[in-house]
């Protein structure tokens, strides 16, 4: 499955296999943890890894925009991995040329001393209340609003007969919280063990699987 439709707090969402969600009621695209510039940061520090991989990130975002035609995009933190490097440029150009309204919730990796971001057409926020939702980077508990967040790079482990195991990145949905998978390639993941009441939408090379 490429997309899964789901209602949260009465609002309609589309979960997309490209690791983003689309909030139909407000025409918003929401994604998290892109880590732009990670590979170039490694290179600058003497670690030879090719950075072709990170180009896919921008391609994916453009494809999503073509398909959903959102009026705004929320990025829930860690858009950039470290301080400015050349990999940022393509993104900054994209932001400045786009008609879409971009909002970045600050993450622990984002370093906003950079004038480059401040001058681009992105709104920066520490967190955001919108409708029944609270957007943050790091997951928070104990609020009335439903928390949509990132930071964790969630994954789950599956077990089958014959001692089979599988680890899959996922959208992690619990009672009062949705944790988005990391949008960026080359980002790694962290295994969560769900409660019986939680459910997850797993990302695989064959699309989405809801469990």
């Amino acid at each position, binding site marked *: 499955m490429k997309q899964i439709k789901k209602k949260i707090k009465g609002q309609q969402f589309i979960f997309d296999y490209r690791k983003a969600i689309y909030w139909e009621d407000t025409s918003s695209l929401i994604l998290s943890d892109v880590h732009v510039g*990670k*590979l*170039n*940061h*490694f*290179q*600058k*520090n*003497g*670690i*030879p*890894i*090719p*950075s*072709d*991989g990170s180009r896919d990130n921008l391609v994916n975002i453009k494809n999503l925009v073509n398909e959903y035609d959102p009026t705004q995009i929320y990025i829930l933190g860690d858009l950039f*991995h*470290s301080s400015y*490097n*050349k*990999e940022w440029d393509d993104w900054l150009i994209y932001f400045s040329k786009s008609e879409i309204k971009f909002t970045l919730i600050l993450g622990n*990796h984002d370093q906003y001393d950079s004038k480059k971001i401040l001058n681009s057409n992105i709104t920066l926020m520490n967190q955001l209340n919108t409708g029944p939702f609270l957007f943050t980077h790091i997951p928070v508990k104990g609020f009335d609003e439903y928390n949509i967040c990132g930071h964790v790079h969630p994954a*789950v*482990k*599956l*077990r*089958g*007969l*014959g*001692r*089979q*195991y*599988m680890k899959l990145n996922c959208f992690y949905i619990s009672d009062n919280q949705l944790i988005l998978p990391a949008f960026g390639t*080359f*980002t*790694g993941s962290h295994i969560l*063990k*769900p*409660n*019986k009441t939680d459910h*997850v939408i*797993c990302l*695989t*090379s*064959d699309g989405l*699987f809801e*469990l």
Partner: protein
Amino acid sequence: MNKDNLYHSWVNTFFSKRNWTALPFQQEAWKAILKDDSGLVNAPTGSGKTLSVLPPILWKKLNSQKTTKSSLFCIWITPLRSLSKQIQLSIQDFLSDMCDEFSVEVRNGDTSLKVRARQAKKLPHILITTPESFQLLICSKGWKKKMERVDTVVVDEWHELMGSKRGVQLELCLSALRFYNSNLKTWGISATIGNLDEAKNVLIGKHLDGSYVKGKLIKSSTRKQIEVEVVSPKKIKELPWRGHLGLHLVEDLIPILERSKTTLIFTNTRSQCEIWYQHILSACPEFSGLLAMHHGSIEKEIRLWVEDAVRKEKLKAVICTSSLDLGVDFYPVETIVQIGGPKGVARFLQRAGRSGHRPDQISKIYFLPTHAIELIEASALKKAAKKSYTEPRIPYVLSYDVLIQFLVSLAVSDGFRANEALSIVRKTHAFSNISDYEWEWILTYITKGATSLSAYNEYKKVHIIDDGLFKVLSRGIAMRHRVQIGTIVSDNHLNLKLLSGKRLGVIEEWFISKLKKGDVFLFGGQYWELFQIQQMDVLVKKSKSKKGKVVSWMGGRMSFTSYMSDLLRNEIYSIQQNTSYAKTLKPLSFLLDMQKELSIIPKEHEFLIESFQTSEGFHTVFYAFEGRFVHEAMSHLMAYRISLLIPISFSLAYNDYGFELLSDQFLDVNQIIENNLFEATHVKDDLEQSINASEIARRKFRDIAVISGLVFSGMPSNRKRNKDLQSGSQLIFEVFRDYEPENLLYKQAFFETFEYQLEEERLIKALFKIKKQNIVWKNIEKPSPFSFPIITDRLREKLSSEELGERIKKMQLIYQ
């Protein structure tokens, strides 16, 4: 008097004072060293190997020009830090008597800052160091000047280094030293291995035309007599079918310890070491204070104390892992105990040789099998001890990761020029065949990145400055490189500390991640309560509890050598030939009878496959008796070939006896037989296919990524600041797979997988053997005794040809 006689009368003053006589191999080595040869001395531990090379080196120096006497002239390399002290003592002993104007010091990871600072100003005459610290010296500015007067490098326990990447590291460093100091002589000291001549050649290196530099091989004729005694419980029912702890034998071990002055007890894993320590103490509390433990994760001060205490005869017994395997000569040791199969004959015999130090003494080793089937191993080992066969150590070649690390080291210190470096590199055994393409690729990789330069637009590591000098200019890169050199390749390690800050040792991250605050675990023979994890430190306090988890370590699973496998196979085949069981196998008769009843004990012309079902699924177990590594490969090969016939998912397990394919559906073995799946052709292609779908190459890549500097594990003092440079080797592996499959480091992971892990050659031989056998397929009701140790193994690989969606449908989430 001629020169030789002068030397002999000099050296005899040392020997005669101690009532010693120089052994023939020592005299032969002296002669060769005095003649300015290089070479290799083959001598068993405890036979005076240090004295076979030290005196003539000193003598030559004593008789040389005065002006050259003030600087470092001899580097003594040991594979383990724990050996350094012992060697320092025995060198010092000679120096004090014979030429006290020379100094000897140790430099390794344990050397204090104060001593390091002093050595930075002035190095001693004789420096004892490890390959890593040696390379670090080459990373320091002005190293060529500091080492220009070095005339001899001695490599102790060369056999231990040669079959590893540390051996390659040392080959490169030695070649560099030789390049700038053409008079350098190299002497190795090695225990007996199957390929001594090759060992000598690899150590001394090659000419540019590819021929080996001449050197002398000196063999001692001393041969130890070894007696093996198998300790097994009176009743076989007490011996478990599986497991590797062997605790049922604690009671039988105590009298052995009591009879002997000092005993070394070898275990195969660190956790086994911990558990045995506890059990011996509780079985025999009067040993408290007389029993110690020694393994690689215990803090060095404690280890050094233990070693010292053994020498001073303060301890009754030490429980250890291979951390005490190497040449420390513990003269008081009378008895050796081996718990669980030693995996290789050479290792077993070497351990045995640690007792009974006088040449005429018989070395005695007690073998305690940890599970029933190991009794068969015991029987085989007894036979091996009578013959004298030893396995070869295969030297690594074309380890690009080590080469990259070495070149960056040169670039960090004084810089290098491409043509000079190439001749240094080509004069080693490991890289004498490096192609021009590969060499150019490596140089490009450290300076500009790999083939698609646009993908490396911000990369910098080594710069080429105007006159063609390759040099690291960034201080940060240089610093990170130096930190990386000593890094032990293994899981992430955390420091284990008391709340007061005292360091207790290191512990693997995956283990500690399973614990919560307040959980109790066993480490270093003591129970600890987890208090807090602070970045790279695990803070603990002593616990009064007498129960807790045992720290385990993932690394260090060893495989049977091919010789050991031969022995074992013959042992099993011979069971059936005799009407009654051999004496050593008597205790096993209950189990063997049961095996026969349920299934069969295979004979020489039979290849046994068993199928049965348990709550875990459908098991198919294959008995090839070829050793763990071959079984690993064979299981992948079989699983892959079967998966081409039908959509199926397997989890694979293997040990030294055979392998298992576990699936959620029944596997019809007739299909394997009819489709000729044991075919020995296309093995490499099929393996490559199956390994793409599996994990071995990824695991190999982990070491490669660390050694070549792709994965950075953090600064010791300031780990947090570099956090944004940390990444898993898995991710990097995927980036290369998807975007740069021609990367030599990526390719190396596969090369190593086939060459050193899967042992392709042995696999093909084994397949040919199977083709000549009759396949006997037994469909049985329940697991047979032979299958038990295999199917209970928890470390598993997987392979699948089913649709992902199908698999996910059949699986379940792992909940809290």
